[in-house]
């Protein structure tokens, strides 16, 4: 049986697939570099869980597990690249926060919170500028 972390990660990928800007270019745990044909893209990976009171697991009492999920929005374009990732962020926000069903991944988690949006990183060392906007989500599950 898959761990909840995997199930949640895959549910996030499913939920974010098909958005207007990124389309099917949503990748979980992606390590191989992206080609131009795979951009703009959304990268999803699961991070740590700040568990306080993990011993509750042994006693059988309910414990909420706050799973950090990193969603990187990446684009490469001569111009308008920052607008592109901002648009992608807007689409992600709608996909995850427009209804209770979406915000709980149809009951898989208690909620998904927008924990933080990190500084966008830009690089012009390639033939076109590249931008990455890291978005940190927190999915609370039991």
């Amino acid at each position, binding site marked *: 049986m898959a761990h909840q972390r995997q199930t949640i990660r895959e549910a996030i990928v499913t939920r974010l697939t098909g958005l207007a800007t990124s389309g099917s270019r949503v990748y979980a745990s*992606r390590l191989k*570099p*992206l*080609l*131009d044909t795979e*951009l703009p893209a959304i*990268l999803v990976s699961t991070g740590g869980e700040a568990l306080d009171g993990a011993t509750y697991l042994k006693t059988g009492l309910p414990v909420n597990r706050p799973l950090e999920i990193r969603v*990187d929005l*990446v684009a*490469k374009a*001569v111009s308008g690249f920052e607008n592109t990732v901002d648009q992608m962020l807007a689409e992600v926000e709608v996909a995850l926060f427009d209804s209770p069903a979406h915000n709980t991944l149809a009951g898989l988690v208690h909620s998904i919170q927008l924990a933080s949006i990190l500084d966008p*990183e830009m*690089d*012009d*060392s*390639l*033939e*076109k500028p*590249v931008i*990455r906007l890291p978005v940190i989500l927190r999915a609370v599950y039991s």
Partner: protein
Amino acid sequence: MTAPFAALRDRINDAVIGHLSDTVATRNGTVSVVGLFDKAYGESFGLITGNDPVFRCLTSVGMARGDTLVVGSTTYTVAGVEADGAGLDLCRLEAP
């Protein structure tokens, strides 16, 4: 009057471009420019593939940011010009 070493340097630069150039590019749609074109593989953030196109030519050509440079069938825009201070420019190119 050109200082002796400067004259020697200019002759060397001319020889480098004259003998080692691999590309005749077209600048701003009209002017032919001889130089060395390189398009090495590159990565950004270890995450996104691409290349890093550059064109080296004599500073006396006068390349400037915003110039267009046609190499083969690709029209690049000069994103930056880095002079080495000794007569050669490295032009960083942006693809369309």
